[in-house]
């Protein structure tokens, strides 16, 4: 007998609305239909706007990867004007990007663990996350929406004192992440629950062009920081972290290992602050007129902005392609044939961000 189950839009597993229409045969999912658009606000239309205000709007596409969104937007608009930002601004942006990856990955790991019922580690992840948020509050003035990126640079400087605090922060964070890593990787329960669930084969990952930890969990070493370096990644070489098995476990392990990579990059960036000049903002002399696109490796994967100016303050067209947009087609083949109890776990290891997906 076949039954249809509506999974979402209001579901305890996801914070955000998304609907999956599951056709069930007993406990096994036979067919799955994805319905999105519950978060669609119409931001691409709104972006035909003053380009300075656009930086604040792009931040509010997604609250988890704000810095990535605004960096990508600002780089795209700077490209249309042919503007180059000062070196110090680039260093500050890189530090912020990596800090954000830390807090996003901790959030994703925590939510994954919560969805399999491991409340303790979820709380521990959030406890560690608070340190990152404190660091954000000190450097940028807000916990989540940072608002320091503007077209042409950044608005808040990181002084020598703050740089020292960042170093201390790295030490504390590394210690805590090591604890967390031990607890997750050595846990028999977690491994047994997640291994072999929701396997995405390497061929499927290449066919569907999935991005970020989902692709890297399936042995596709696709990382924009290595493929097409942006702000400071020309100097700081990043080697993509790859796992081979392609299941929920592999995707989580990629995120755990990337925590240390991020801490390492922040450590490499701090000495660069000392001899980077004092300018953090370059004023543009021209208006946006050409077309340009940029890509940034957000915590969830590749983030793409296309900008086209029309020689006035207003932009002509901004297209946003977010990482969940790239991972969206990957839900359906994995859910087909799995158990109903695994649907929540599989989707949460994709780290879906519906605010990004629908814009």
């Amino acid at each position: 007998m076949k039954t249809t189950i509506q999974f979402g839009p209001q579901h305890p597993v996801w914070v955000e609305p998304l609907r999956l229409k599951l056709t069930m045969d007993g406990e096994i999912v036979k067919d799955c239909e994805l319905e999105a658009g519950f978060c669609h606000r119409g931001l691409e239309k709104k972006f035909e706007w003053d380009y300075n205000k656009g930086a604040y709007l792009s931040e509010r596409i997604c609250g988890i990867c704000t810095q990535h969104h605004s960096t990508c937007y600002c780089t795209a608009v700077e490209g249309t004007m042919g503007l180059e930002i000062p070196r110090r601004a680039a260093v500050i942006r890189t530090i912020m990007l990596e800090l954000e990856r830390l807090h996003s990955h901790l959030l994703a790991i925590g939510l994954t663990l919560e969805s399999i019922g491991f409340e303790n580690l979820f709380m521990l992840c959030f406890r560690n996350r608070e340190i990152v948020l404190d660091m954000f509050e000190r450097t940028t003035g807000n916990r989540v929406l940072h608002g320091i990126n503007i077209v042409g640079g950044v608005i808040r400087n990181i002084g020598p004192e703050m740089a020292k605090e960042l170093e201390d922060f790295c030490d504390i964070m590394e210690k805590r992440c090591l604890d967390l890593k031990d607890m997750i990787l050595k846990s028999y329960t977690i491994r047994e629950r997640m291994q072999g669930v929701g396997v995405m084969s390497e061929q499927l990952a290449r066919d569907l062009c999935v991005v970020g930890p989902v692709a890297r969990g399936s042995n596709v070493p696709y990382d924009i920081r290595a493929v097409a370096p942006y702000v400071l990644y020309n100097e700081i070489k990043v080697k993509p972290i790859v796992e081979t098995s392609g299941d929920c476990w592999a995707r989580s392990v990629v995120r755990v290992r990337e925590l240390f990579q991020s801490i390492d990059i922040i450590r490499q960036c701090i000495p660069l602050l000392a001899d980077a000049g004092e300018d953090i903002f370059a004023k543009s002399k021209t208006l946006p007129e050409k077309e340009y696109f940029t890509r940034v490796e957000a915590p969830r994967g590749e983030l793409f902005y296309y900008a086209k100016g029309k020689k006035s303050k207003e932009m002509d067209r901004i297209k946003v392609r977010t990482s969940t947009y790239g991972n969206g087609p990957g839900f359906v083949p994995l859910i087909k044939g799995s158990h109903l109890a695994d649907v929540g776990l599989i989707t949460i290891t994709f780290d879906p961000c519906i605010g990004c997906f629908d814009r």
Partner: protein
Amino acid sequence: MSLIELSRKKSPWVIHVGTGGCNGCDLEILACLTPRFDASRFGVMSTGNPKHADIMLVVGPVTLKYKEIITNLYNQMPDPKVVIAVGTCASTGGIYQGCYGHCGSLDKVVPVDVYIPGCNVRPEAVIDGLVLGLDILNEKERKILEEKKKSKGAA
């Protein structure tokens, strides 16, 4: 004070609804329930089921597709109920003013009792809002009890 009223005052259950803003305020509500700003100290518990909830925390401007769903959720909640608009978007629309995809602020769809301004809100502000929401919950409870008494007396 009846037992139900006491338990409601001591332990309000909240339902967290994200209607399509950025996730900033969603995260801060999660941060509220986790170790740093542990709202469970006041007995606040997050539930996924609107039928068990006393307080609805709504985040984000109400998108056109979500309008119907949020009225359903509101109607499923038992009386007395309190709706808290968390963040600028839910209160007035915020930066998404004039976008075609949403129908503006939350109070055009369901009645709102508490507005928490801030973009994004701080967890402290959410705790303040919950405390204010509890007062309103008690007021509403008392009103319902009085009406019941009156109707009993009339009968």
